[in-house]
């Protein structure tokens, strides 16, 4: 395949998700005007599908929550100790840092120190960006405070302007992983006995995280052909975050929990762990793609010809909820973060173009994974529009004849039924949200508990504002070739 031809194929694949999403939306609008009855039928079919899907996914959430409740309190280290060779496993823990200050970094390292796992098996790598001048000072402070706590603490500085790289987290993490590899070689530690964990700078691990990780690593059938994905929660500052942000972050945690039950679709997200050897074999994280956390999975998937999976760890890693100083800034911060997540649509052209080059992966798997990826992103970009905006459209644009028809009369009733089911699902989500909430800090009023429940009333607003628009925005940018730049999410922490 020629280079130009390959480029054209990739452009086509970049255009495809956005074009599909826009075509679906335009199709619905056109139908609402010219064939309102057909439009109403499609909306009813979609709404019914969405009700069934919501019930099904809520069931998965309940199951995942049950697993989390069961496993997070287990003594994983004790379980590891019963397995021969557990003591030979080392951990490289990379924290890619950009502008995060000591107020963010210190709790992350304190959480590591507090884990129920031997610290002498941990090599902590603080990966700073050389271009950020205060980083050197942060590195010194961290080094001074935490040296001697772990097997070793490395502070590395990722140089700017390395050819082929973009200013992304993946580039920084890759640089740190390469330095770690050199370090491991110098210490004579075999790479296949090392698990690498790449954590966001604000990640505070659960104290059983490493025990749980090692147990699953040692008991997995092909431990090097798996990534290990904990449940991301946004608890660090959850009691101080505004209701709007809290709701979105809790929903994001729930989505990840649901995904953990759908193993055939499960892809790494945010902070996760994997075999260091595998990471080296697949050529580290991508250095020019924003969604490095999921692309690294696809790289491994392609490397092992489809025989690669994600093992869910029912233990939590806690991060900061993204919020800012006022409502509109918070909305913007959340929008940008969700758009960055939705930029994961760049995985589609990446994956499909490489499927063409890999004849060893069965066609069925290629078709299924491609479809799953495309469907999930397109659905993300259109579902809130169909439910929130398209629903009343046939009534508004369909004219008098449609309004006098039985389907025109019944459409609002059926869409209303959908809303009631959403409320029912929200009730389950409210109850479950309490199970992943950390204890209320001192100084926080009990009234916050009431707000925590009441905030779920704004779900319809959140769905309308942040349900599909960030995904549609990201897909449109990819479609038009306006590639996104990485921008670190603004994090605010009132209490350290």
């Amino acid at each position, binding site marked *: 395949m020629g280079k130009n031809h390959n480029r054209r194929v990739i452009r086509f694949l970049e255009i495809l998700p956005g074009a599909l999403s826009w075509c679906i939306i335009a199709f619905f609008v056109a139908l609402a005007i010219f064939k309102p009855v057909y439009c109403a039928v499609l909306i009813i*079919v979609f709404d019914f599908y969405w009700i069934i899907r919501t019930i099904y996914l809520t069931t998965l959430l309940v*199951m995942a929550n049950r697993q989390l409740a069961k496993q997070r309190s287990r003594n994983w280290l004790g379980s590891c100790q019963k397995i021969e060779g557990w003591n030979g496993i080392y951990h490289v823990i990379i924290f890619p840092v950009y502008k995060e200050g000591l107020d963010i970094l210190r709790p992350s390292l304190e959480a590591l120190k507090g884990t129920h796992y031997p610290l002498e098996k941990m090599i902590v790598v603080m990966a700073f960006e050389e271009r950020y001048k205060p980083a050197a000072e942060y590195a010194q402070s961290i080094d001074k405070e935490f040296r001697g706590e772990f097997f070793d603490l490395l502070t590395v500085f990722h140089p700017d302007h390395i050819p082929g790289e973009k200013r992304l987290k993946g580039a920084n993490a890759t640089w740190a992983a390469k330095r770690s590899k050199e370090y491991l070689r110098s210490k004579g530690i075999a790479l296949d006995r090392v698990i690498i964990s790449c954590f966001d700078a604000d990640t505070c691990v659960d104290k059983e995280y490493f025990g749980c990780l090692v147990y699953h690593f040692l008991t997995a059938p092909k431990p090097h052909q798996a990534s290990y994905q904990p449940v991301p929660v946004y608890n660090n500052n959850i009691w101080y975050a505004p209701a709007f942000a809290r709701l979105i972050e809790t929903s994001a945690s729930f989505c990840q929990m649901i995904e953990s*039950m759908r193993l055939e679709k499960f892809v790494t997200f945010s902070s996760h762990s994997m075999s260091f050897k595998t990471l080296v074999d697949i050529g580290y994280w991508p250095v020019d793609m924003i969604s490095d956390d999921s692309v690294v999975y696809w790289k491994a998937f392609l490397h092992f010809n489809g025989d690669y999976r994600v093992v869910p760890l029912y233990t939590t890693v806690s991060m900061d909820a993204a919020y800012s100083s006022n409502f509109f800034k918070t909305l913007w911060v959340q929008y940008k973060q969700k758009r960055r997540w939705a930029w994961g649509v760049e995985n589609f052209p990446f994956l499909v173009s490489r499927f063409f080059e890999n004849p060893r992966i069965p066609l069925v798997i290629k078709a299924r994974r491609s479809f799953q990826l495309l469907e999930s992103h397109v659905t993300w970009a259109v579902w809130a529009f169909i439910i929130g905006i398209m629903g009343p459209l046939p009534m508004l644009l369909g004219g008098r004849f449609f309004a006098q028809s039985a389907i025109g009369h019944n459409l609002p009733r059926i869409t209303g039924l959908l809303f009631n089911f959403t409320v029912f699902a929200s009730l389950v989500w409210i109850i479950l949200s309490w199970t992943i909430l950390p204890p209320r800090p001192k100084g926080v009023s009990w009234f916050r508990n009431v707000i925590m429940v009441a905030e779920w009333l704004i779900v319809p607003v959140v769905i309308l504002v942040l349900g599909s628009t960030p995904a549609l925005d990201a897909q449109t940018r990819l479609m038009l070739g306006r590639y996104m730049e990485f921008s670190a999410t603004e994090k605010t922490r009132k209490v350290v």
Partner: protein
Amino acid sequence: MSVDQKIRAFFYYVSVAVFLIGLPFILAFSFSYKFDRRSFKFTKTGIISIRTQPPGALVALDKQVLPDKTPMSVPELLPGRYSVTLELEGYYPYISEVDVDAGRVARLEKVILFPLRPDIQQMNRERISFFWRDETKSSLFYVNRDENVVYRSDLEGNRFEQVCSFTPIRPQPKKWEVSPDRTRLFYFNSRQVGIVTLPQGRKNRDAGSVVILNFPSDVINDVFWYADSYHIILICSRRILICEAREDASLVTLVNLAKRNASGFYDAHSDSLYFMDAQEAPDGNVYDNLYRLEMRNRMYPFSLPVLLL
């Protein structure tokens, strides 16, 4: 496969089954198809949608009372004519025949139920002979002919007060009208026009004064206030006049009419007078026409600013 994955697979297939089985029923419901369990067939039906003002009325369909109250819809009705009775305690019942077509909605959504004992309120607080509503539609004026008194209130009957006394004229006045600046009131019969100056606080020293203008040689059909509230326009049987609303005012004949007892009106907004008159056409016949007289041009010398008057 783990237990969780088996449970999940079970739920997945149940969800797919529910979707596939439920969807035809949902779509059938949407199109108002009724499923007959005996014949195992779908029959297309219609809907009656009922809304009343006030809501909460009992609905009887072909004399059979339904459990729900308005607003409500009656689905799954076989096509045909139905008798709908709406009843609400304290209101007149509403009875109507409604045709129901398959797949369509028959709407009874503009039904107003009128109360059996309407809430009637007496507006006047003194004895009155008749009333009229002010041009601005914000006041009611009342006249007591026996005592020759004019009262005023707002549209709710509040702020009821005596406005002025007037000098009676015979025969009884045809019409009463307050001037646009609300400082004066005229009333007239076929020969006389009475002008009453209305009280405006302490500033108006002439308040309560009455002027009677006599027009012995004319038959007055209608009178209008001119836009400046100082002149009146009189539409008489043979001519249209304008004069100042004061004693000994000089008359200006605006139009001599060929047609007797022609109608007309004055529009203060455009400052124009519209009137009917007859005119002989080139064919020798006489036709009635509507004419417009632009007062701004003709009456310029009289259009003094209000402040100077």
